[in-house]
């Protein structure tokens, strides 16, 4: 039981780190540009597709990954210039509609280019092993890499946001964007930077996860909803909030799905427990979100907390 | 009634290390027009927010007609007879002038959970609204779209709406803001007339208006009340002169 718990806790951690990578960029986009971007999940999907294609083309996952990162960055910039910069001044409703349309375009576009069948990316040999944990339990090396890469990125983001000039502008922008524009900060460049950074992080997350999930159209949609939940719980505009919330969501979801039914089986008969477990498990994070919002309508660490 | 209508005791509000309202206490007697003046950034608007209930105070208390309303929300305060107007015009632009006032009347005229009868045709609401509009001189504009009024007329509408709530005490936040000479005169005359039936707390920068209308004046500087008294007493108060005119002048 302890082994199972440890295993699932690590899985939850890995899942949470992944969510953080996608959510960090999006919470900054929400917080600084006040832009609702439903298409953020598609950037995650594009990252996965690019690494799948580039890995197959070059024969090397690491090379594929290294090429994917600037590619998603470029893709993000293109989207920003073509569409998103026209949306900053529009109301939330227009942003919802436009980005909803963008999801349709990109999901369909990906299908037209790569076909509807799921693609897979093989885990590189050097990373296909596992490392020992407790007793004779082992954990896949690749997942450890994801956790490590995610934590490294989190650290990098933390340093960027807290200890650099750009980071200072990001934090100021998340609190009051028109103000820093009035103070002379080039808001257009800042917005483009934030958007590109967010796109790159999402693409990176998609690329990292490609070997352990199947790459298919629409994979961005499910991660999008989860990302929203993370941002809402963590507080819009707060990277720290996104980190805490992402880990929380990752752990609650993973542990809940595993241990929920086990717990329920001790309370009711197997088939009822199984049904209840299957019903409650996906709902756990939404219940968590509802609970957090009930007490803190602006999330755990809202960046615009100064409004109080 | 005996005793103050509005009694503020040790009111405090801080944003981080900044004490925007710093231990403010004063009283407003019924029928009085009490002006609050002070240099820019003194915290006057924050004080109005705290008095009207749109901002929770960190400490101190607000008493209205003998009742402690510190924890009462904005809607509750309006129902008890304490209404405000806004410094930056905040009306319903898309509705008619009459409807703006009628809504305020509706808020105190029974339940608004009525789903089928047309509200715009409710004569009692419209009559009371017209009375408020007539008092401020906007009755001839009743059926125009509120957004089409001139700036001065919008300031008049702000006051009309506050009147229409049936409030006893009006918190007027810089009613003369952005008005020209003629518009100001209209509004000052209006407030002089309102004095006869209402208690008024007036936040203003326009000193002529303040000294013409106010029974008593309180001076707010950096969140602290440095003087309270009649207009004359405040005018010659040394700290007030310093606050407005600077150290050198006071000498």
């Amino acid at each position, binding site marked *: 039981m302890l082994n199972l718990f440890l295993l699932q806790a690590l899985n939850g951690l890995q899942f949470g780190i992944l969510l953080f990578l996608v959510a960090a960029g999006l919470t900054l986009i929400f917080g600084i540009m006040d832009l609702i971007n439903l298409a953020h999940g598609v950037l995650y999907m594009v990252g996965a597709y690019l690494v799948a294609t580039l890995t197959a083309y070059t024969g090397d996952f690491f090379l594929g990954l290294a090429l994917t990162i600037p590619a998603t960055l470029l893709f993000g910039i293109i989207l920003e210039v073509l*569409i998103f910069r026209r949306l900053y001044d529009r109301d939330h409703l227009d942003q*919802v509609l436009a980005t909803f349309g963008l999801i349709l375009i990109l999901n369909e576009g990906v299908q037209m280019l790569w076909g509807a069948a799921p693609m897979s990316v093989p885990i590189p040999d050097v990373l296909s092993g596992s490392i020992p944990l407790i007793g004779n339990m082992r954990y896949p090396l690749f997942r450890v890499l994801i956790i490590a890469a995610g934590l490294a990125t989190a650290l990098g983001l933390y340093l960027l946001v807290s200890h650099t000039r750009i980071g200072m502008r990001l934090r100021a922008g998340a609190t009051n964007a028109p103000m820093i524009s009035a103070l002379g900060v080039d808001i257009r460049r800042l917005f483009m930077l934030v958007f590109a950074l967010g796109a790159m992080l999402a693409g990176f997350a998609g690329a990292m996860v490609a070997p352990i999930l199947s790459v298919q159209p629409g994979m961005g949609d499910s991660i999008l909803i989860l990302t929203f939940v993370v941002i809402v719980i963590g507080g819009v505009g707060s990277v720290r909030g996104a980190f805490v919330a992402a880990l929380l969501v990752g752990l609650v979801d993973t542990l809940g799905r595993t241990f929920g039914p086990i717990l329920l089986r001790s309370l009711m008969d197997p088939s009822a427990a199984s049904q209840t477990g299957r019903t409650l498990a996906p709902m756990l994070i939404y219940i968590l979100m*509802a609970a957090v919002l009930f007490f803190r309508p602006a*999330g755990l660490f809202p960046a615009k907390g100064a*409004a109080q | 009634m005996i005793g103050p209508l509005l009694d503020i005791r040790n009111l405090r509000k801080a944003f981080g290390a900044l004490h925007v309202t710093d231990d403010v206490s004063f009283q407003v007697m019924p029928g009085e027009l009490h002006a609050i003046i002070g240099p820019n950034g003194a915290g006057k608007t924050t004080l109005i927010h705290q008095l009207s209930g749109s901002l929770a105070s960190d400490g101190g208390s607000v008493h209205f007609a003998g009742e402690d309303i510190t924890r009462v929300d904005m809607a509750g305060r309006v129902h008890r007879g304490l209404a405000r107007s806004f410094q930056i015009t905040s009306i319903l632009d898309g509705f008619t002038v009459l409807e703006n006032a009628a*809504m305020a009347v509706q808020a105190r005229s029974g339940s608004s959970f009525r789903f089928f009868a047309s509200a715009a045709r409710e004569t009692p609401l419209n009559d009371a609204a017209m009375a408020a509009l007539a008092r401020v001189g906007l009755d001839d504009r009743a059926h125009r779209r509120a957004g089409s009024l001139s700036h001065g007329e919008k300031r008049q509408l702000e006051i009309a709406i506050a009147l229409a709530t049936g409030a006893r005490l009006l918190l007027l936040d810089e009613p003369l803001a952005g008005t020209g000479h003629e518009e100001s005169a209209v509004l000052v005359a209006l407030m002089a007339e309102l004095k006869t039936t209402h208690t008024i707390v007036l936040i203003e920068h326009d000193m002529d208006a303040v000294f013409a209308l106010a029974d008593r004046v309180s001076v707010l500087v950096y969140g602290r009340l440095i003087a309270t008294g009649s207009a004359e007493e405040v005018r010659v108060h040394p700290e007030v002169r310093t606050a407005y005119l600077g150290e050198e002048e006071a000498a």
Partner: protein
Amino acid sequence: MSASDLTLAGETPDVAPQRRLSRLDGRGTALAAGLIFAALALLPLLATAIDDQFLLVTATRIMIFALAALSLDLILGYGALVSFGHAAFIGLGAYSVAILAAHGIDDILVQAAVAILVCSLFAFVTGAISLRTKGVYFIMITLAFGQMAYFFMVSLSAYGGDDGITLAARSTLFGAPVLKGNLTFFYVVLAALAGAFVTLRAVVGSRFGRVLRGTRDNRMRMQAIGFSPFRYQLTAYVIAGAIAGLAGVFLANQAEFVSPAYMSWQRSGELIVMVVLGGMGTLVGPIAGAVAFLLLEDWLAQISEHWKLGLGIFLVLLVLFTRGGIAGFVSRITGRGTP
């Protein structure tokens, strides 16, 4: 709660001020509505004349979504509440029919009553939590609650789960299969749509509707005259949910099939499109929007299997280049100007 109403300078609104139509252009919308309902009432004659029964079926389906879009307009157009989970109510209504039918309860009045009850309850609970938030949070939390309902239905394998559940037959009225014929069913749905339209028109002009519209336009001002917005918005949210649930009851009968896909967030997004496309805050606009959107979808689907691409491009262009949707366009060319 009150401090969060002090809007920060430059904060993007959920729905821009110029979209909030406070003036009810009575005659214009009444005329438009009259024309639309008259056309719909005569449609069966056309269907018989050109011998196309499919026209009737399609029109019924469009009217069902028009009913749902109408309900969304109450909270979106008149409340400025961008709810991204509205399709959940359609699904809950549809599943009320399916689940009751699976247990032998076929009567449409019973099913409709249950649907309305379930949707009202769901709307009350989720609305009470969602309405404590504003802006971006509200949109995302309604999206999340919609997803929650979706996953709940997917998990109920007893009722088909992801695959959905087929109805043996349409609902009955006091034991009689009155809805079996497409013609009767068409008129029943038309009557419901017309009834909902007339009812909501009255609601919007009532005391309640006025508070809702005022809150949409200037929340702080409404509070300053003594209204607490929350209870009115929640009531509107429940009414909208209940009407959408009724649409779900009809949808289940129309398709004789119910699946969780009815309540996906993509469906919720499509509902918003219908309302905005037609012109929000007009009641007649969403009806026109539903017609236009579903016809567009059908037309694009006939042109290419990748019709979603076309739809997406259409949406992006719609947002970037138009304001006010169909209703806005019509009012501009007929001179019944909207500011």
